[in-house]
């Protein structure tokens, strides 16, 4: 490998790291404490250098949490704007459906952020059984496991509504998916 190629590769890696750092600053519009990288919706960052040494094209692959999630369009716009602000003008956003997004991709940091915000993070691994199990969900306020499901569907597609039987507070649960 000649020196030029090696330098190009190093600068590509640096660019990709820089893009991940930008993506980390973008928060989910509906859960504003959670970064889209912690949410696990960024599947890949690719870079394609142009032969005429113009700005490389950055391809960011995102995956929707739910098919009808209205936040996806907004997230795409937010990514494009953040990239432009950081000096990247050639950004392409692609959507990948498979493998389907799962709550297993929410990072540990993300789960802590959710809890601090008052949303109970998903418990256990995403379901693979035909019919969902009933799990003990911990109240994000008082940590009691004495909680009851009010509705399997909450204020957004990804959440369910619970209430705590001890502190009597209702809360959102980020359901396993």
């Amino acid at each position, binding site marked *: 490998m000649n020196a030029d190629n090696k330098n190009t590769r190093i600068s590509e890696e640096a660019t990709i790291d820089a893009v991940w750092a930008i993506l980390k600053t973008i928060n989910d519009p509906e859960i504003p404490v959670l970064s889209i990288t912690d949410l696990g919706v960024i599947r890949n960052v690719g870079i394609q250098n142009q032969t005429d040494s113009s700005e490389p094209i950055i391809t960011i692959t995102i995956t929707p949490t739910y098919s009808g999630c209205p936040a996806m369009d907004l997230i795409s716009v937010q990514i494009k704007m953040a990239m432009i602000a950081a000096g990247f003008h050639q950004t392409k956003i692609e959507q*990948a459906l498979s493998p389907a997004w799962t709550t297993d991709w929410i990072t540990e940091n993300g789960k802590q952020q959710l809890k601090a915000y008052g949303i109970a993070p998903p418990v256990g691994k995403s379901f693979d059984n035909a019919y969902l199990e009933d799990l003990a969900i911990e109240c994000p306020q008082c940590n009691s496991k004495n909680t009851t499901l009010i509705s399997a*569907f909450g204020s957004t*597609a990804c959440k369910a509504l619970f209430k705590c039987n001890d502190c009597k507070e209702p809360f959102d649960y980020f359901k396993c998916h």
Partner: protein
Amino acid sequence: MTTLNKINYLLHLADNALIIGHRCSEWCGHGPVLEQDIAISNIALDYIGQARNFYQYAAEIINSENDPSLGFVLPATEDSLAYLRDTPDFKNNLIVELPNGDWAVTTLRLFLFSTYQFYLYNQLVNDADTQLSAIAEKSLKEVTYHLRWSGDWVIRLGDGTEESKLKIEKAIEYLWPYTGEMFINNDDSISSDWNKKLSSIFHDATLTIPAKSWMQEGGLKGIHTEHLGYILAEMQYLQRAYPNSEW
């Protein structure tokens, strides 16, 4: 499968998701209690998202064929397929276009249909067409929640009060003749799995499965009930009156 058959099959899946999604969305702001209003509106959103995925894929194939003799507006988009096709072009099952009726009809219909979708998508996940299998994989997770929610309602109404039982029994009587159409052109395993799930939920709900009887059909060929035209009139009005208008 010929390309036209493939397009038509994708449109069938898309139309089913769009029309049942539209029916669910009609409850938005009218649900019996706030939590259930939110639940069915979320379900509507899932379905419309699934419909978009199927329409987008169908449009991609239609545009790559670029053949006006196939009978589609070119270039096709998810919007042209949802908003610019007429009643006889829609290929959804009749059961999804029936009016919502009361809460019993709505939840029972969703249970009967999402159970069918659950087993169908489970099969499509293994389809050789990777885009179709990806959409099925994504949709399956959502449909599992729909199935659980609607199944719980069937049990609650069937094993509830005298009045709730009467209402869901009426709903069974009304919807039953529309269940047979879901299994046309599908493997027998889908109908046997569907029957098994139905038996288990109906057992918990203390409900009786109706005897075998004559079944309605026609949706796959574009022969619909009188209800679909009204849905499309409402849904398509804006695009028909103001072509290419955008929000």
